C-alpha cells in the first residue's frame, strides 16, 4: 500500500518535472556551432577564445547554425555578437531545406566595435521544422553564441 503510494508520487513528480522541463527548454549554443554558409568561406572562420567564432577575412562573410526543435510554437531567439556592422536573422526551415518563417535582418549598432545582443525575434516552429540562425559577420567580428527559448 505504502509502496504504491510512493510509486504514484514518484510518477506524478516525474510528469510534473518533465512538463516543467519542456516548458522551459532554454538553449544556449556557442558561436563555434556556426559554419560558413558557403564552402569557400570556411577558411575565414577561426575560433576566438574557447567557443566563439571570428571572421578573419577582409570582407563580410555569412554563417549559419541550425538547431532541431521539439516544441511547436513561438521561440524567442538572440545572438551575442561583437561588431558594429554585422547582422543576423533567425528563420525556421523544413525537411527539404525550405524556409517556413523568415525573421527580419537585425543589424549591430554602429559605433565602436562592441559586444551586443541582437534580438532576432520569435520564430514559429512546426513539427519537423528546425530553427536556423543566419549571420553576416564583418571582418574581425565575433559571434559568441546564440540562444533559443
Amino acid at each position, binding site marked *: 500500500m505504502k509502496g*504504491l*503510494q510512493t510509486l504514484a508520487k514518484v*510518477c506524478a513528480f516525474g510528469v510534473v518535472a*518533465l512538463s516543467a522541463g519542456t516548458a522551459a527548454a532554454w538553449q544556449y549554443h556557442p558561436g563555434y556551432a556556426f559554419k560558413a554558409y558557403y564552402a569557400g568561406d570556411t577558411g575565414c572562420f577561426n575560433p576566438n577564445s574557447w567557443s566563439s567564432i571570428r571572421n578573419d577575412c577582409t570582407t563580410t562573410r555569412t554563417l549559419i547554425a541550425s538547431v532541431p526543435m521539439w516544441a511547436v510554437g513561438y521561440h524567442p531567439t538572440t545572438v551575442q555578437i561583437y561588431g558594429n556592422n554585422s*547582422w543576423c536573422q533567425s528563420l525556421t526551415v523544413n525537411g527539404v531545406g525550405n524556409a517556413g518563417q*523568415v*525573421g*527580419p535582418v537585425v543589424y549591430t549598432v554602429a559605433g565602436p566595435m562592441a559586444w551586443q545582443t541582437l534580438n532576432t525575434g520569435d520564430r514559429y516552429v*512546426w*513539427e519537423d521544422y528546425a530553427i536556423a540562425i543566419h549571420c553576416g559577420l564583418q571582418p574581425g567580428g565575433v559571434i559568441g553564441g546564440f540562444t533559443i527559448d
Partner: protein
Amino acid sequence: MTSRLQTVLALVNTAAIAGVLFAFVDHQRDSRQELEELRAQVRKASTGDSLDLAGRRAAAETAMRLWAANAGAQPSAARAQPPVQAQTPAPEEGSEAGDVPPPPPPRPPPPSFEQSRTRVFTAFAEETVDNDWSGKASQTLNEAFRQHLPASSRVKSLDCRATLCRVELVHRTAADHGALLMNGLRAWPGSILVASEAQEGADYVVTLLASKEGTRPPL
C-alpha cells in the same frame, strides 16, 4: 559447607533459567498476538480501500503512460495526445485522494504548417486596409523587388492591408527564389511566412505573407 553452597547456587541458577525461559515464551506470545492484530488491520484496510487502490493504480499507470508518451513523442503532435485519457477512471474523492494528482487534460494538437498558413490567409482576408501602412509597405516591397528580383522573375500580385502583405512571385527556378529571400528582402522589417512554393509548369510560384514590424502573424 561447600556442597551446600553449590546446591544453593544450582537452585538459584535453575530458577534464573526458568525465569528467562518464561519471559521469552511470554514475549513470543505477545508478539504473535500483535502480529495477528496487524494482519487483521491489514485485511480490513485492504478490503476497505480496494476500490480506491484500483483507482489510484489506474491513475499511476496513466501518469506513467503520459510520461512515456510526452518523453518519446514531443515532436509528434498526434502522439502527444494521451490515448487512454477517456478510459481512465478519476481517482476517488477521499482523505488520500490528494496523493495522486489527476492526469493533465489532453492538450490540443499543435497546428500543422498547412493549418498555420490557412489561419494567416484567413487573417489577411479579414483585414481592412490601413492606407497609411499599406502604401508604405507596398513601396518597401516594390523597391526590394525592383532592386533584387532576377530579370526572369516577376511579381504576379502584391496586396498590403493592415498588418499583412500577400505577395505572389513567379520565378524560373527555385534558386532564384532562395537568392531573393536571402538577400533581396533585407529591407523588410518584419517576419515573412513562405506560405507556398511550387513548380507549376515552367514557373516556380511562391506566395509570401509579410508581416508588419513588431506583429506576430496568427500562426
